[in-house]
């Protein structure tokens, strides 16, 4: 808990402006089962926050609340200072499986996210370029590899121009090498597009490599958080990085006490 107090002090000055996301005492229960319990969280615009924790700690549910797929049972959520109900138009969720429509081409899948009255195809093509898949625009998703599908899903999320990108273990199903590539890609795109991002993962190294701030969740609560200002792209063999990674791992495994 000491680390938590310290990091609170560091975080505060950064969140002076209206937070992009603000959770106040948010709780969620399914029947008698408490999934989220008194979660308080502020995320600054443009911040990349990672949430780590074991399976079933409530991290995915938190994202579902943020994107409006589920209503909270207690507390309130404000996006850009405004409370919301129902689907959140400012946030996009990227799933663990790419959830591409198999009957639409790659380009059409990305165009699904672009706004109605715009030059949809061009916007979608631009987003595809960002993830380096412009060559595959006319292909069916069925013939892409797992990593390419996730890149299409990322392009779709980017094409929607949402200010908040929620990533629900987007790389969980990929092989180790593809994961590293995707992590690099997400970081690069995040740096140049400057959206707010919440990355849920159970890979502490991924969290340490990408996030400005890592939250550790257990049993529906945030039990620890850690701010990092290691320079990007992060050197995963540096001692600071390893210290951070081990601290996170220790919290996830043993709780914050």
């Amino acid at each position, binding site marked *: 808990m000491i680390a938590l107090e310290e990091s609170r002090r560091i975080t505060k000055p950064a969140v002076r402006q209206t937070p992009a996301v603000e959770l106040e005492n948010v709780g969620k229960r399914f029947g008698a089962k408490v999934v989220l319990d008194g979660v308080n969280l502020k995320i600054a615009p443009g911040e990349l926050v990672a949430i780590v924790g074991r399976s079933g700690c409530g991290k995915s549910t938190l994202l579902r609340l943020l*994107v409006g*797929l589920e209503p909270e049972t207690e507390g309130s959520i404000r996006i850009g200072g405004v409370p919301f109900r129902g*689907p959140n*138009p400012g946030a*996009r*969720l990227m*799933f663990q*499986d790419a*959830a591409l*429509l*198999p*009957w*639409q081409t790659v380009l059409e899948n990305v165009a*699904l*996210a672009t706004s109605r009255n715009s030059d949809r195809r061009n916007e979608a093509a631009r987003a595809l370029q960002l993830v380096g898949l412009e060559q595959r625009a006319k292909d*069916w*998703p*069925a*013939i892409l590899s797992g990593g390419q599908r996730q890149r299409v899903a990322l392009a*779709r999320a980017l094409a*929607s121009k949402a200010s908040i990108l929620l990533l629900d273990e987007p790389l969980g199903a990929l092989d180790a090498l593809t994961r590293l590539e995707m992590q690099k890609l997400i970081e690069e795109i995040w740096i140049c597009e400057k959206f707010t991002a919440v990355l849920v993962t159970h890979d502490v190294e991924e969290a340490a490599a990408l996030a400005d701030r890592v939250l550790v969740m257990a049993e529906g609560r945030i039990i620890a958080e850690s701010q990092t200002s290691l320079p990007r792209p992060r050197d995963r063999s540096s001692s600071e990085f390893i210290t951070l990674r081990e601290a996170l791992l220790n919290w996830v495994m043993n709780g914050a006490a």
Partner: protein
Amino acid sequence: MKQPWYSLILPWVLPILLLASWQFLSQVGAISPRVLPSPLAVLESGIRLTKTGELPLHLAESFKRATIGLVIGGSLGFLFGLLNGLSNWARFLFDSSVQTIRNVPHLTMITLVILWFGIGESAKLFLIVTGVFFPIYINTLHGIRSVDPRLIEMGRVYGLGPFKLFQKIILPGALPSILVGLRYALGVMWLTLIVAETIASDSGIGFMTMNARDFLQTDIVLLGILLYALLGKLADSLTRLLERWLLRWNPVYR
């Protein structure tokens, strides 16, 4: 996926062999023409009836019945399938009753249908409509209920309204199943048509066949049977083409 070269030839081998040996056995006199006329004789009577205009007339009649019945029954099945697939209320209200009626073989209704409608067009249409309704209904319902819920969730996250959700996700997701229903319905359609035209009719291939039976014209009876087989196969091939085009995104159909 490219089809191997023999995929175009092998399907023809059995039918051609069968026709050739049939022709051979007829020509050497092993089969009496009264029992089974030779394929060439059947072809000859087909040409003769085409020249008199009889065959095209009956064909057109049968074809019209089949199409109208399929369109009406298929649309009803599709609409009910959609309704019950999309609304829990409708499903609880209708589905159990529909499933009960489905288990009545629709051809057992013939006696009743003749009492109700006489032997006119409406009786035959009614039978075809009830025949094709169920396969399309069941498969549409099943198709809609088995659309990947993650895709629907994705659609909701991306702010698709109910109509867009249906158009872009639910309908294309249900389509493979709906097309299976259509192929099945086509089979039922021909079967019903044959029975309906054989029992009570004054036109159509079934009538032509029954009429020929009364005059012991075995060649025309055979012609009718072969025509049913050909028409059925043609309908099935067309649906396959439709499948390959509509489901071209799916590697299984390429």
